[in-house]
C-alpha cells in the first residue's frame, strides 16, 4: 500500500502530448515518484527489490532447466 501526497501533481498538464490517464478517482503516478532516498515508501520498495534480487541469486541454481549450455554470469 503506497500513498503519496504528490499523487495528483500536475494533473492538468499534458505529458508527452497526452493528458494523463488515471483510473477513475485514482491517479497512481505517485506510486513510482519519490523525492529522496529517505522517503519511507521508497525504502520499502527498494528493500523488496533488493530482497527479490538476493532471492534470485540464491535460487538461480534451483532451476535445472536453466538455459542449455549456459550458466548465470
Amino acid at each position, binding site marked *: *500500500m*503506497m*500513498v*503519496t501526497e*504528490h*499523487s*495528483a*501533481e500536475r*494533473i*492538468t498538464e499534458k*505529458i*508527452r*502530448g*497526452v*493528458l*494523463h*490517464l*488515471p*483510473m*477513475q*478517482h*485514482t*491517479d*497512481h*503516478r*505517485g*506510486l*513510482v*515518484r*519519490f*523525492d*529522496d*532516498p529517505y522517503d519511507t515508501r*521508497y525504502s520499502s*520498495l*527498494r528493500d*523488496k*527489490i*533488493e*530482497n*527479490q*534480487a538476493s*532471492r*534470485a*541469486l540464491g*535460487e*538461480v541454481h*534451483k*532451476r535445472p*532447466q*536453466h*538455459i*542449455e549450455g*549456459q*550458466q*548465470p*554470469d
Partner: protein
Amino acid sequence: MSDAALYTVAWICVIVTSLVVGCQFLGTRRSSTPPTRPSKASRKPQFWRIQGIEKSAEACAREWIERVSPQYSSLAENDSRELCATVTTFDKPEKPDWARNVEQRFQGITPLSSPTEAEVDIIAVTGLSGHALGSFRSSNGQYTWLRDDLPKRLPKARILTYGYDTTLHGSQHKESIRGLAKVFLDTITSFRRATKTQARPICLIGHSLGGVVLKEALAMSHETSDKESHAIILCTYGLVLLGVPNLGLRHPQLAMLVKGQPNQQFIQDLGVDEDESPSPYLSELTIKFSRVCSTTNPPFHIVSYFETERTPTVKVSLLLL
C-alpha cells in the same frame, strides 16, 4: 465658451493625456524589461539520452557528464562496443562529437547502470503515456530513484528501463497489448544476447500498463518454442507490480479519447465491460498468468502495490474531443 464646449475640451484633454502617458509607459516597459529566460524554478527539467558512444570515448563522455549534469546522470554499457548516457538538464545539451545522437523519447532499452560485477538484471517498464525515465522522477523533476539511487544500493545489479510509445490521442497506430509484449520480449532477448547475459537472473518492475505488458510477455515466453525467448521466463525470479490495472481501468473518458482511432481496441482491452467486470482480454491474461506462476519452479516472487488514496483526476479537455 459654453459649459458644454468646456466639458468636451476637458474630456479630449483627459483622453489625449491618457494615450500619451500610456504609450510612454509601454515604451519604458519595453525598453527596461528585455525578454528574459524563465528561471530554473519555473522551467521543467528534461531527460536526455545520449546514444552511440564508442567505448574508446568513455573518458570524454565522463568528463562531459561531469560538466553537464554531474548529479543527475548515468553512463552504462549498451553492448560490447557502445555505451549509453542519460542526463537531466534544463536545456538541451549540444550533441558531442563522440555520440551518435541526443534524444528524449527513450524507446527500447536504456541501461542506467552496468557494473562489471553485475549478477542480476533489474528491468523497469513504464505505464500508459509514461516515459522510461521521467515517470520515476521526484516532484521537482531532477532526482530519479531508478538511476540516481537504486544502482548505489544494488551494486551487483544491472538496472535497465524500457520505453515504448503509447501516445493515445491522435494515434494512428493499431496497438495491442500482445504486440507491445512481443516487442518487449524480442528487445530484451536481443539486448541480453548482445551483452552475452542470456542466463542472468531477472527481476521485473512494472508500473500501470507496464505490469500488464510484463505479464503478457512472461506468458508468451512460457509458451514459446524459441529457446532464447523462453529463457526470459526461466531467468525471471521476481516481479514488482505498481498500480497495475489487473481488473481493468474504470475510466470512461479514456475510451472517448480514442474513439474512432485505430487504438480503440487497445483501450477496450485495458478497461472493464459494461457490468464492471474486467475485459475478456484481461480475464484471459489472468488465467494464463496464473498458469505460468503455478508451473514455474521455484515460483517467482510477486509484490503488488496499489494506490489507496482517492485523488483528483484529470478531465479530458473538450477541445481534444
